[in-house]
C-alpha cells in the first residue's frame, strides 16, 4: 500500500502562512502583528500561534483603534489577549486628532478610516517596528490582488506599485534600511471562503457579531449600517431591527452588515459559498469612494 502524499488546500495554505511567519521571525528584529479582533486578524493570530508552538509568539500585537469600535469586538480583543498572554499595544486615532496631527472629517458621512493611516505610521515609527503583519488578502480588492507577500514601504510608509520587488518561489526579500519597513501578508492567497472554512475546521472563536443577531440598522447607499452611537442619522433614515451579521469588522461608521440567519461557522461557510457579492462590495462604504480608493490609500501607507 502506498501513501498518498497530498495536502488539502487548507493545509497547503496553512503551511505557506506558517512559512511566512517563521521567515519574518527569523530575519527581522522587531515584527508586530496588526490585531483588530476582526476575523482575518484572528486567523492570523491562530496561524502565528501554530507556527511557533510550543513557544509563545515572538512578537507583540498592535491595534490601530479608530475609537469607533463595536463593543463586542473590543471585549473579544481583550479576552484573546488575556487568554493567550499577548503583549498588546494600542495606537489611538483619537490621540492624533487631539494632538492636531490629523483633522477629522465633519458631516454625517464622516469616517475615521482614512485617518488610521497616520496613526498606523506613527505606531510603526514609535515602536521601531521593521515588519508589520497585516491580514489583507489578494481576493479582497483589485489593488490588493497585485500586492506582494513581503511589501516594501519607504520611510513614509508608502507603497509604490510600479516598484515592487519581484517575489519568486518562497524566497522572500525583507531588505530594508532603518526607517523603512516591510508589510507582511501571510493570508495573501486565502479567500473569504478559505478563512471561514478554517474558522469552522479549527473551531476558532470570533466576536459574536460575525454571526446572526438582531440589532437596529439603517439603510444607506444600498448598504445596511448598524445604528450605533457613532452613526449620525440623515434625514429620512429610520432605524429598524433586523437579523444581521457582519462579514468584515472595522470602523463602525462605514462597516455594513448583511441580513443573515447564519448562526454557526458551518452556516456561514454555506452562506459565503453561495454569495455573489464580495465582502467589501457588501460592507465597505469607503471602498466605493472611487475606482482606485484602496490603491490610493495603500500608496499613502494604509495596509
Amino acid at each position: 500500500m502506498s501513501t498518498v502524499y497530498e495536502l488539502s488546500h487548507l493545509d497547503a495554505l496553512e503551511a505557506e502562512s506558517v512559512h511566512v511567519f517563521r521567515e519574518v521571525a527569523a530575519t527581522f528584529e522587531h515584527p508586530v502583528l496588526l490585531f483588530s479582533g476582526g476575523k482575518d486578524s484572528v486567523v492570523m493570530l491562530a496561524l502565528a500561534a501554530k507556527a511557533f508552538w510550543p513557544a509563545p509568539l515572538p512578537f507583540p500585537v498592535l491595534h490601530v483603534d479608530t475609537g469607533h469600535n463595536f463593543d463586542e469586538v473590543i471585549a473579544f480583543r481583550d479576552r484573546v489577549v488575556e487568554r493567550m498572554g499577548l503583549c498588546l499595544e494600542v495606537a489611538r486615532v483619537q490621540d492624533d486628532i487631539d494632538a492636531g496631527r490629523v483633522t477629522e472629517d465633519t458631516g454625517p458621512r464622516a469616517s475615521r478610516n482614512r485617518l488610521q493611516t497616520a496613526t498606523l505610521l506613527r505606531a510603526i515609527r514609535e515602536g521601531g517596528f521593521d515588519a508589520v503583519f497585516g491580514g489583507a488578502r489578494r481576493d479582497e480588492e483589485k489593488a490588493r490582488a497585485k500586492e506582494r507577500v513581503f511589501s516594501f514601504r519607504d520611510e513614509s510608509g508608502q507603497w509604490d506599485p510600479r516598484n515592487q520587488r519581484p517575489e519568486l518561489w518562497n524566497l522572500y526579500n525583507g531588505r530594508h534600511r532603518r526607517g523603512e519597513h516591510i508589510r507582511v501578508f501571510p493570508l495573501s492567497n486565502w479567500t473569504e471562503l478559505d478563512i471561514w472554512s478554517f474558522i469552522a475546521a479549527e473551531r476558532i472563536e470570533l466576536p459574536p457579531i460575525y454571526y446572526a443577531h438582531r440589532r437596529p440598522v439603517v439603510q444607506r447607499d444600498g448598504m445596511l449600517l448598524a445604528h450605533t452611537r457613532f452613526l449620525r442619522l440623515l434625514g429620512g433614515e429610520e432605524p429598524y431591527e433586523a437579523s444581521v451579521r457582519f462579514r468584515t469588522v472595522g470602523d463602525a461608521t462605514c462597516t455594513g452588515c448583511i441580513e443573515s440567519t447564519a448562526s454557526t461557522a458551518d452556516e456561514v461557510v454555506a452562506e459565503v459559498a453561495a454569495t455573489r457579492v464580495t465582502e467589501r462590495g457588501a460592507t465597505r462604504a469607503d471602498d466605493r469612494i472611487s475606482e482606485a480608493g484602496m490603491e490610493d490609500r495603500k500608496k499613502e501607507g494604509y495596509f
Partner: protein
Amino acid sequence: MPQLLRLATAGSVDDGKSTLIGRLLFDSKSLFTDQLAAVERASRQRGEDYPNLALLTDGLRAEREQGITIDVAYRYFATPRRKFVIADTPGHIQYTRNMVTGASTADLALILVDARKGVVQQSRRHAFLASLLGIPHLVLCVNKMDLVGWSRERFAEIREDFRRFAMKLDVTDLSFIPVSALHGDNVVHRSASMPWYEGTSLLHHLEEVHVASDRNLIDARLPVQYVIRQAGRDFRGYAGTVAGGVFKPGDEVVVLPSGLSSRVAAIWGPGGLPVTEAFPPQAVTVQLTGDLDVGRGDLICRPANRPHTGQDLDAMVCWLAGAGTLTPGATYTIRHTTAETTAAVQKLEYRLDVDTLHRDESARALALNEIGRVQLRTRKPLLFDAYRRNRATGSFILVDDTTGNTVAAGMITGPALPASRVVWHAAAVGREERATRGLTVWLTGLSASGKSTIAVELERRLVAAGRPAYLLDGDNLRHGLNADLGFSAEDRAENVRRVGEVARLFADAGVVAVASLISPYRQDRERVRQAHERAGLPFLEVFVDTPLPVCEARDPKGMYAKARAGEIRGFTGIDDPYEPPSAPDLVLRPDDEDPAARILTLLNRSAWWE
C-alpha cells in the same frame, strides 16, 4: 478534500486571456456581481460598449490610464474538486520578469494563442519560460475557434506547429484545447460546435491534471528556517518547510554543513500535531536526538542522500532589474533556501535568445528580462540540488546590496566545474525511477599510459562502494565485439563508435561505464561525447597524459618495440598520430598519487551523482 492548483497564464492581451480568465471565474461562480458591476461601470466610462474583462485584472490606476498591465495579479477561483490560484502574468514588454515571477510557483502554465494567428513569437517565449521554470504541465489553449469556423484542420495545424517547437523544450506534459473564451466553448462546458474534439473542457482538465507526483519525494531535504525553543520545557525544535522527500520519526539523518549524525526524535505539524510522515510542502518542526548545534541555513537530510555542497555553481539566471546589468565580477547577496551569503559572478557563459534559443557566447552582460547561463562563486558553501531535480533547493535570488532590490532569479544547473566543457545534465524523467544513475568515464591516452590500471582500480572502488560499474577495456573488446576491426583510421573510428555506444547504453541503464581506450582521434571521442549529451548522460573525458618515452619504457606487451622494429604499422605515437583532448575534464599525470581517487572526487561533484 479539495487540493490547491497554482497556474500561471500567458499570452498577449489580444489573444483573449482576460476574457478566458473572466469566463473561468464567472462560470465557476467566482466572479462577483459587484466586481462585474464595477467592470461595467469602468468600461462605460472608457467609452467601451461591452464589459471589458481585462479591467478585472488590470486594477491599478496607471494600468487603467495607460491600458497596460504593470504587474502580476493573483486571482482565485474554486470548484468542489480544487482551489485555483491564478498568477495572471501580463503579456507586455516586461513579459519575462513577470512571467518568471508568476511561474516560479506554478504547477501548470496556460498559454493562449489566437486561432487566426497561430503560434507566434510570444507563444514560443512563454512556452520556453514555462519549461525553464520547470512547470510540469503545459496547456495550449487555441482561442477564437469561432473565428476560424470551428475548423478541425486549423486546430490540428497549430497543434503540430507548437508540438514541433515544444520538442526542443523540456516539457513533460503538453495538452491542447480548442476554445472560444468569448462564447464559453470548451472552457467550462464541452462545446457543441466542435464535435470533432474528443478531449475535455479546460476546467475539467484543470481539475483532473495529476500534480501530486510532480514533487520530489525521493531526496529528503529540510532547510532549517527557525529554531524554536521553549524555556522551562527544554524543548528545542528545528522548524522549516520540507523541500523534498519524506521524513519519519526514527529516521537516521545528517545535519549539513556540520555533517553531524542524528535521528529524528519527533516531528510536529503546526500547532503541535504529531506527524508520522512529513513531505513537501509541509511546514513542520523536527526534534533530533542528542545535543546538536543546528541553526537557520543548515539542512537536514539522509546520510546516503545528500545535496551538493560547494561554492561554485552553474546556473541559468533571469535578470529582473530595470537599472543596471549583470556583469562578471559583480557581487550580490544570494538567498538560497534559508541560507544567505555573498555571490560573485565568475563568468557569463552565454546569453540565451528567448525567441530562437540561440546562445550568444560573446555577450558581456545581461540586461532587464534577459536570460543567461552564469558561474557563481559564493563566500560560504551552499547546500543545493539541480533545479530540475528540486525547485526548492535548486532556486535562488540575487539581491543588490545598495538598493536592497531583488535583481535576479536563478535556477541551479549543477556545480560549476572550472575548465570543463561538460554539460552536467540533471536527471531526465524515467531515469529517476532507476535505483542508480549511470555515466561514462572515458579514459584516453597512449598505449601503456596506465589507462587500464586506473580503470581497473576505479571499477573496483565503485563496486566496493555499492555503485554499479563496468569496465570496457579497448583491448578486451577487440576480442569480441570488435574482433572484425583492424587499425586503419576508419576501423579505429568504428571501434571508438561501438565502444561509445555500449558505454552510453550502460550509462543509460544506471551503470558507470569505465571505458579505457586509446581512442587517438579527437573527432571520434567528440562524437561519443555528443551522443551522451543528446541522451542527457554525463560524459567525463579523462586524459591519461603519460609522455611517450615513459610509455615506451614501460612497454608491458612489447608493442612499442615491435612498432619501432617495423613489425607493426600505424602504431599510435610512433607512426600514427595521437590527438590529446583540447578540454578534458581531468588530466592525470604519471606522478599523480592515487589517480582513481581523483576521478572519484570529480564524480562526487557531479549533479548526477547523488
